[in-house]
């Protein structure tokens, strides 16, 4: 079938129709345009709803742990930590301090890998592939440590009910210290790039604006909220694991745009490195787990942790048996989606990919169709993510002279 080319807004031509004419697929974003600007945006989500909450009601607490970890493969440890702490609270169990520290070590390693992942993906979205490759190469060092310590690169499985399953060895401690040294250097380069490069600033500043009041009103969490001046961070406001002793700094910025969201994540990584260093020097001795009974006494607990993307909130109800009565999971991205229409509306279509990417959604969220309704012509186009991304890169090159292919990294 011949590819059709359709002018979008009469400016840039993007081939569409690569999908089968009878393709039935719900669009995950519906954007209405006036000229080149988005005047209304709707997000339609739930593509990966699997029925996890129901599944847990039919599994034991330890089986549910393995499902909970796989709600999201990028912040799996956050999910597993909030779940374990909630069950431990219901069971009236206090886990050893060393176990709390070890959970915290993996929390911060996860934050590093997740932010590096995001940085690379965001770079990729705006056509800055050199940077994407640099950052993901650094990320491999974090993955190596996670694998050595926990036994797996992804879905680490370090948590168990009552503590953690593996302990640090002197070699791993040395590796983490070396990682901190390396990250100090690399983060300096990234910070300089983020703060000093005009092309990057030109591409990201004033894009996807979210004022402080709106961020609060829409319940934004994590780096998205902090980049809009909202000083919330569960590690500091409502400490879990070992964060009562391992103090985090809340990284707040008031740019209120995508640029701010980049800055906040880079500076959070700097803070994570500081905390890892502190923990390597101060981790208390002791056992790494205690026994938790199979049957959990009846009760209810609401709990939350700070995942890399923001507050991850759970509600657990137990009924005295081996199986949970109810588990409610609210991942951070679900909170941040409420504000997405607000961030997209009023900006150019060409900025939509990076605005969506900047809330750090699940990778596969961007793997869906985008429906564009043009108010002026009354026409409707369907794009996939690659096409929208290409349109965006072309548009910025033509209109603003922004071309990352020419940017060098020192």
């Amino acid at each position, binding site marked *: 079938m011949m590819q059709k080319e359709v002018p979008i807004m009469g400016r840039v031509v993007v081939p569409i129709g690569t*999908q089968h004419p009878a393709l039935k697929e719900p669009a995950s974003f519906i954007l209405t345009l006036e000229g080149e600007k988005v005047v209304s945006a709707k997000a339609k989500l739930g*593509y990966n*709803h699997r029925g*996890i909450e129901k*599944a847990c009601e039919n599994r034991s607490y330890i089986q549910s742990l393995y499902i909970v970890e796989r709600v999201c493969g990028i912040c799996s440890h956050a999910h597993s930590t909030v779940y374990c702490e909630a069950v431990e609270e219901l069971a009236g169990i206090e886990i050893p301090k060393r176990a709390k520290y070890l959970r915290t070590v993996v929390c911060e390693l996860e934050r590093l890998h997740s932010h590096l*992942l995001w940085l690379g993906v965001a770079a990729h979205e705006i056509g800055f592939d050199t940077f*994407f490759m640099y950052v*993901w190469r650094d990320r491999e060092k974090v993955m190596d440590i996670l694998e050595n310590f926990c036994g797996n690169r992804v879905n680490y499985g370090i948590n168990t009910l009552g503590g953690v399953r593996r302990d640090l060895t002197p070699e791993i401690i040395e590796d983490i210290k070396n990682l901190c040294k390396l990250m100090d250097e690399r983060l300096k380069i990234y910070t300089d790039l983020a703060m000093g490069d005009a092309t990057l600033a030109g591409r990201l500043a004033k894009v996807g604006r979210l004022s402080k009041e709106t961020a609060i009103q829409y319940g934004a969490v994590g780096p998205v909220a902090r980049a809009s001046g909202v000083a919330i961070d569960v590690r500091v406001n409502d400490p879990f694991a070992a964060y009562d002793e391992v103090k985090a700094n809340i990284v707040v910025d008031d740019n209120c745009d995508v640029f701010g969201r980049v800055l906040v994540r880079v500076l959070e990584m700097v803070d994570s490195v500081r905390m890892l260093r502190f923990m390597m020097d101060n981790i208390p001795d002791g056992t790494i787990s205690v026994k938790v009974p199979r049957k959990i006494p009846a009760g209810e607990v609401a709990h939350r942790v700070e995942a890399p993307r923001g507050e991850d909130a759970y509600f657990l109800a137990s009924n005295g048996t081996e199986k949970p009565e109810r588990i409610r999971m609210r991942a951070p991205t679900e909170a941040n989606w409420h504000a997405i229409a607000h961030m997209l509306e009023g900006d150019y279509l060409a900025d939509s990919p990076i605005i969506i990417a900047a809330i750090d959604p699940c990778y596969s969220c961007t*793997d869906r169709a985008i429906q564009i309704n043009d108010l002026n012509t009354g026409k409707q186009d369907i794009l996939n993510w690659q096409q929208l991304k290409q349109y965006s890169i072309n548009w910025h090159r033509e209109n603003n002279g922004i071309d990352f292919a020419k940017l060098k990294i020192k």
Partner: protein
Amino acid sequence: MSLDQKIINWARRKSPWIVHFNAGACNGCDIEVIDALTPRFDLERFGIMQKGTPRHGDILVVTGAVTMQTRDRLIRTYEQMPEPKFVVAIGACACTGGVFDGCYCVCGGVNEIIPVDAYIPGCAARPEAIIDAVVKLLSTIK
């Protein structure tokens, strides 16, 4: 086999184009697929490129237990790919449904929906395993 066919086979063997489809995954396997493209693992040195459009794809790489919402699109994507085409199920969920098998919105592994040529277990499947499977698949294209 005609000369044309031999050349096409050779080209295909040397540089297959991959279409990546997330059927409802937790993203763990997706990031390992992307990892396979980055310098440490470097799938591109085999000439393997990731393409957005199924119409030019040789290998459909699927992650995740297929959910109700993605099932039809998976079928359509598969149908759009020209022959010969190959399907690789990456990760425990794509192979059998993984930990989510039996959940109410999950259809199961990819082979419940479309024919699968290679299964890569793991949770998540490692980049080395992904590359290994793709290269093995290529060697079966005579």
